[in-house]
């Protein structure tokens, strides 16, 4: 049997699933209310769904999902949820708009695309820090319109003889730990004292002593001039 559904019948099935999760029974009227359509349109759609054996419907009686209908409805609902999450959490779209847009895009996305979005969400939610750095920065960017990444000054661009404050260290944990152990910590004021005769490495003064590091590492240290 052909199981492909039109966008609108998908919406009906999803709505039936949602109502069935909330209430004991689903009636035509509940559906019409939820989807804000006429009773007659509902009846039409219900007929189609019944033909595909996704629901069982006695005339003017309750609507019940078949096992297959429950499965399809559930997956439709979950797809909607994923898109909603993607829009609100990652793109930071307002919930109202997100809900509407989720409804519009969901019918046209390939199964694989949806799966990818699920994976992306999964990946982000399992990151060691509850909210990854870049997401915090993206939020800030949306609020202020200033990209931290674009304007942040890094240690390699500091001029000889000038002082700066360490803002953040974006290096891989082994080097980061080593730098911190040697006194290069957030908030510390350092001074670029010298560059090697060939321009690289550089020498900084930190905690009263001189430390040399390569430019490629210095590039990952964000500073703020003082």
């Amino acid at each position: 049997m052909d199981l492909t559904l039109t966008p609108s019948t998908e919406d009906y099935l999803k709505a039936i699933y949602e109502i069935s999760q909330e209430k004991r029974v689903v009636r035509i009227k509940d559906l019409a209310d939820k989807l804000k359509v006429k009773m007659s349109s509902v009846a039409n759609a219900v007929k189609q769904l019944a033909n595909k054996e996704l629901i069982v419907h006695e005339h003017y009686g309750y609507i019940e999902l078949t096992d297959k209908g429950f499965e399809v409805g559930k997956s439709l609902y979950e797809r909607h949820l994923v898109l909603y999450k993607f829009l609100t959490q990652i793109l930071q779209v307002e919930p109202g708009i997100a809900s509407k847009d989720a409804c519009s895009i969901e019918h046209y996305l390939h199964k694989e695309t949806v799966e990818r979005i699920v994976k992306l969400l999964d990946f982000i939610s399992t990151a060691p820090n509850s909210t990854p750095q870049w997401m915090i920065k993206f939020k800030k960017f949306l609020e202020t319109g200033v990209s931290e990444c674009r304007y942040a000054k890094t240690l390699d661009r500091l001029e000889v003889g000038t002082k700066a404050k360490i803002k953040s260290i974006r290096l891989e944990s082994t080097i980061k730990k080593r730098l911190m152990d040697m006194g290069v910590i957030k908030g510390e004021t350092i001074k670029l004292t010298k560059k090697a005769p060939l321009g690289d490495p550089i020498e900084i003064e930190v905690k009263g002593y001189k430390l040399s590091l390569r430019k490629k590492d210095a590039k990952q240290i964000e500073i703020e001039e003082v």
Partner: protein
Amino acid sequence: MNIAFTGNPNVGKTAIINAIAGSKLKVGNWPGVTVEKKTATFIYKEKEITLTDLPGVYSLSPYTLEERITRDFILEEKPDCIVNVIDSTNLERNLYLTLLLMEMEKPIILAFNMFDELKKSGYKIDIETISEMLGVNIVPTTAIKKEGLDTLMDLAIECKSSNQKTIKYKLRYEGFLEHEIEDIIKKLKENSINSKYPLRWIAIKLIEKDEYALKKLKEETSKDLSSLAKENIMRIEERFGEDTEAVLSQTRYGIINGILKKTLKKPHKTNINITEKLDKIFLNRLLGLPIFFVFMYFVFKFTFDGSAPLIDWIDGFINGYLAKYVQQAISFCPNWLQSLLIDGTLSGVGLVLSFIPLMFFLYFFLAILEESGYMARAAFVMDRLMSSLGLNGKAFIPLILGFGCNVPAIYAARALENESDRKLTAIMVPFMSCGARLPIYSLFTGVFFIHYQALIVLSLYALGIVVAFIVAMFLRKTKPFKAEKTQLLLELPPYRFPTLKMLWISVWARTRAFIIKAGTVIALTMVLLWGVINLPPNSTPQNSILGKTARVATPLFAPTGFDRWEIVATIIPGMIAKETVVGALAQTLNIQEDKNNEANNTTFIEDTKEQIVSLSNAIVESFKNMFFSIKQQTFELEDAQDNYKTKISSILTPLQAYSFMVFMLLFIPCIVTLAAIYQEFGLSLVLFEMALLTIIPYITSTLIYQMGKILNLN
């Protein structure tokens, strides 16, 4: 009792240990690695004391070898007292390690070294209060003036007993953090984790996500604790908005700041110090590199030209003077035994002894570079050039020394900070064409390329360098030689004047280690090789073990072009020392060298007098070479003798001769180099080197010979 010394690099820890232990100091390596281990055992106030010098470290993370050694030693060997040596002029960073050591809850005292410098620069310090706030005893010391060392030792002996009460005082971290630490300790207790490590230390390591500690704990308790502190970590990260490692670093530095704010008053004006003045010159944009090369030239010249007359004297003393009288004394023995004792044993000992001046000069100048603080600058200045070749800037020094002699070059690799860099440099050194290979080039270029002698020799030096860097490039991609990530994160310490006495102690301790460890290997190998060359008794070069083996092996060398047994047979003697190849060739080709057979009727007294005169001449010569002569003697070509010319040119073509020179350039340089690698890096690297230094020359010679044949250069 056991006392362990620990501290940051460049804090004068070596000076303190040298001053305390003096000539009792023994230098070796920590098992399995090339990190230097210094120990000394002596009697102090009727107690036997074993003193261990731990490697200089900034932290106790599990990421570097030195830090792991220090950490393991303190936790596993449980020294009776830890003496944390601190540079008083840089308390802020130095005390960071102190806090890490205190987390381990072992008896500890602090030595505030270079205390005179601190006072001279106008600082006001309240040691009593620092001592009280930390809860440990502090002794101000000035190692080079031997000040405070007796007090330090007295306290170190009492460390365990008298510190008992103070150890109970625990340094507390920031409230929230301390609360989480307590929570983890509670959980550890609930899970009845019984460890030899202190619980608070475990808790901190769990917060820091220290994988090395987790592994050790798993081995000990067979429980995986990695998820025990998961919630605590999350809470800490949420509260401080940073990862836990950063939080802990900042907390520790915060505590130190708090202490120093109360106890240390900085002088009002800071005058520009000598280090900054010197660095203006040494690290100057234009002058930095030329000055570095000038320094390198002098290190090279002093090491080799300075030691050469003394080496010659020792050689003459052993192989001329001693051999003569030993021979007289044992003339009743059969010929083969005389030969074994004189050509095998005595000349083996002579070989070891002849390296003493070289090692001594090398260690002396290396120590000056190291102790003065210039070594770190060498890395800084050269890093750009050397890092493009995948190496540390400091690797330049051993490689340059390699052109004089590979042996000191291997020992000079010690100056590099990372194990993998040290190993890789040691692998590259033998490809640097040393002075001993020059007589071979002289002979063959003299016979075959008389008009292009210099050019051909230069091509060989260049080939050695190229091969070294290609090998290094490939090895860098393998795991044991992978570059460390913390490369060049290094301190440029203040310039300090090394004292002669300090230099003497460390130079002597290291030279002695060479004589004992490398010397034994060399002497034994010499006897073995003597057997190969001279057995069976009364054999000629053709029918000795060597001659017979060479005949069998010769077909193997067909692809390289020099498949003549007379030539192949010189490869083994070439392993003893490259100088012997020419002599061995004379034997296999039956060439009579013009020996000036002096009338050997001098008396013992006359000979002894002569030795004394020539020793004093050698010392004078050594000084002249170092300070009054510009001539560089290591690279002198000598003329080939006529009697070699006809014989050699009758068995080899120029192309084959070149192929042989390439083989000699890249082949195992000598047993002393192998012994040096053995002493520094252990047997496995020696075996690896032997394989590498056999396969690479074979392939390279073959390639050159076969390509030459195609190009019709034969």
